[in-house]
């Protein structure tokens, strides 16, 4: 009984113990909140990336690839639900008659979306693409005045001119409206007789324009995928228009999007699709420069997602430092207390205590400090992770300072994801550290000779 009683009295009568509690609380809090933000960010960004990608994409198809042959082969692969063809091109978009602006500086703009006039132009077949991607959802996720007129045929020709779809923000920023005309300045590689290659300017001749000028498209509407970097740098046109413009043979394909039935089996399905494609193309006979590859969406964005994960791991290590500081703080205050209280050890033994019992007094002091700190840190950590967005709004309102620029990452609020396992790990480590740190001074107290304090004044 005396152990608990004394431990409580010692704790309560020494405000300096608040320092130890505060240190543990701070450490636990920081480890929970920061990791929660990173995990939430990782999840949300993963979702964003995912929303703009097909489950599996087949890349590096040779010029000889034809979609319908490959479609038959891919559809036979287990777990494949559908596949759709794509042509992937690029170009500068500008209003007809205007000279295109200078190309952007490298590394600027792309992630912010739409700063650069240089875009990927994807040729898709909407009827097939809506089965493999969330195309329909992208088309309705925009402001009403930017929505395509006919959702069933979003890329149907308008007044005899080919249609183009742009990212919503890009459209809004450049003040474009439905019906506006855009010229696409681009070139294509042409193989000469002797096998030499040359870049030739693409004109609009094949798609209803004249043979001098760049092809002209009519803006049919906007799309929105939540993956800002993708929206700002991508434009959709009809695959037939792009084929004609680039003088490609009918049914030519450069990339294939695949939808799977069971998302849990995506990676294995990608492998199977890759094998099926290679077999169909006769890749084993080895006449290609590049091997066709099938990637899952995760694989495709692996570098980016792993980057965020790596940052989270780094953050954990940095935050451990706070724990170390808390431990040192606790050790210092507990040592001070034991040094001050050795004079009590003698009388406690004289009253019928033992050195081991006295040790538990100091041990329970330290463990109480740790436990209180862990509980406080966990509760405050969880609450502040969940309500960080409200807190951000409050600071924004109060001081005009934005603590976390959510718009940059196209988030609607500060993300959070509380992982119970991680919270348990943090609490466990904190408890372990607290136990070690309180055990050291407690052992010193137990080794203290009670007679020394009884003799001295």
């Amino acid at each position, binding site marked *: *009984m005396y152990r*608990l009683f*004394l431990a409580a009295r010692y704790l309560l009568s020494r405000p300096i113990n608040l320092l130890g509690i505060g240190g543990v609380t701070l450490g636990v809090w920081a480890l929970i909140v920061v990791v929660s933000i990173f995990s939430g960010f990782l999840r949300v960004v993963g979702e964003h990336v995912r929303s703009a990608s097909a489950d599996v994409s087949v890349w590096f198809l040779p010029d000889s690839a034809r979609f319908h042959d490959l479609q038959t082969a891919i559809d036979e692969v287990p777990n494949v639900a559908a596949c759709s063809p794509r042509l992937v091109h690029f170009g500068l978009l500008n209003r007809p008659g205007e000279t295109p602006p200078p190309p952007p500086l490298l590394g600027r703009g792309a992630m912010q979306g739409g700063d650069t006039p240089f875009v990927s132009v994807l040729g898709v077949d909407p009827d097939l693409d809506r089965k493999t991607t969330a195309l329909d959802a992208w088309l309705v996720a925009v402001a009403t005045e930017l929505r395509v007129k006919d959702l069933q045929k979003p890329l149907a020709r308008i007044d005899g001119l080919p249609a183009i779809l742009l990212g919503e923000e890009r459209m809004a920023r450049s003040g474009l409206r439905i019906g506006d005309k855009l010229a696409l300045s681009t070139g294509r590689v042409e193989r000469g007789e002797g096998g030499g290659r040359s870049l030739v300017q693409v004109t609009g001749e094949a798609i209803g324009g004249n043979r001098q000028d760049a092809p002209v498209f009519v803006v049919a509407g906007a799309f929105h995928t939540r993956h800002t970097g993708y929206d700002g740098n991508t434009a959709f046109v009809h695959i037939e228009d792009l084929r004609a413009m680039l003088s490609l043979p009918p049914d030519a394909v450069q990339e294939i999007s695949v939808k799977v039935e069971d998302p849990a089996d995506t990676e294995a399905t990608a492998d199977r699709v890759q094998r099926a494609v290679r077999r169909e193309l006769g890749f084993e006979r080895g006449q290609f420069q590049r091997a066709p590859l099938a990637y899952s969406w995760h694989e495709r964005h692996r570098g980016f997602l792993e980057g965020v994960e790596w940052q989270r791991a780094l953050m954990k290590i940095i935050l451990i430092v706070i724990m170390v500081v808390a431990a040192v703080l606790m050790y210092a205050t507990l040592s001070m207390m034991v040094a001050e209280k050795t004079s*009590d050890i003698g009388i406690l033994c004289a*009253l019928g205590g*033992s050195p081991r*019992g006295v040790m538990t007094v100091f041990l329970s002091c330290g463990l109480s400090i740790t436990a209180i700190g862990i509980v406080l840190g966990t509760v405050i950590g969880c609450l502040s992770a969940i309500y960080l967005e409200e807190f951000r709004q409050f600071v924004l309102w109060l001081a005009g300072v934005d603590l976390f620029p959510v718009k940059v990452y196209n988030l609607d609020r500060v993300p959070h994801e509380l992982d119970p396992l991680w919270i348990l790990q943090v609490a466990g480590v904190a408890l372990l550290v607290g136990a070690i740190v309180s055990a050291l001074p407690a052992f010193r107290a137990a080794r203290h000779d009670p007679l020394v304090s*009884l003799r001295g004044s």
Partner: protein
Amino acid sequence: MNAPALSAHDVKKSYWLGKREIPILKGVNLAVERGEMVALLGASGAGKSTLLHLLGLLDTPTSGEIRFDGQPVHNFKVGARAKLRHQFVGFVFQFYHLIPELTAIQNVLLAAMMQKSVCQYWKERRTTRAAAEQILDEVGLSQRLSHRPAELSGGERQRVAIARALLQNPRVVLADEPTGNLDSETADDVMQMLFRINRERQLAFLLVTHNEDLARKCHRVVRLRDGMVVG
């Protein structure tokens, strides 16, 4: 049962300074009967405190026997010694040794907590508290229950320490210069009180002192000289 409450038989104690043996007690024989008040005199450094610690099982003799009620107890294990100390012996020291964080009554109650579990103590908390209040009243401190040691005079502190020693109804009180730190008037008061307690409770007292006058008032005086008890 006529065995003395507390007795020492040929108790020797040496300290070691490196390899050199320093004998302090060289064969002490001493018995304190029930209800007897014995004064222990001796020069400074004679080993009085050392003997008291041995008798109170705070320390182990190099050789010899300590008996409580005729039972040898000197070679009990640590836990059993602590328990015996708790039940059998009350200590009073020159420097009070109160715990500064606790009030007077809490310091006294601490003596009751030492060997009890939380449940046990909780069940008995009312009677224990009443007993503590009564003992503090007995030593004249009924108005000082919730004062901390720092708010008490030297004499009052020593009274709290005495109350603490008495709470568990020990058989023997070992007092090491209990008035050594008090002015003569306060010392007289405290001594009067100890004599009264000795009479009323029939408690055995072993009282270490330097004061010959005070020693003469006890039932018996023994002297520690050259590591032996004489007189």
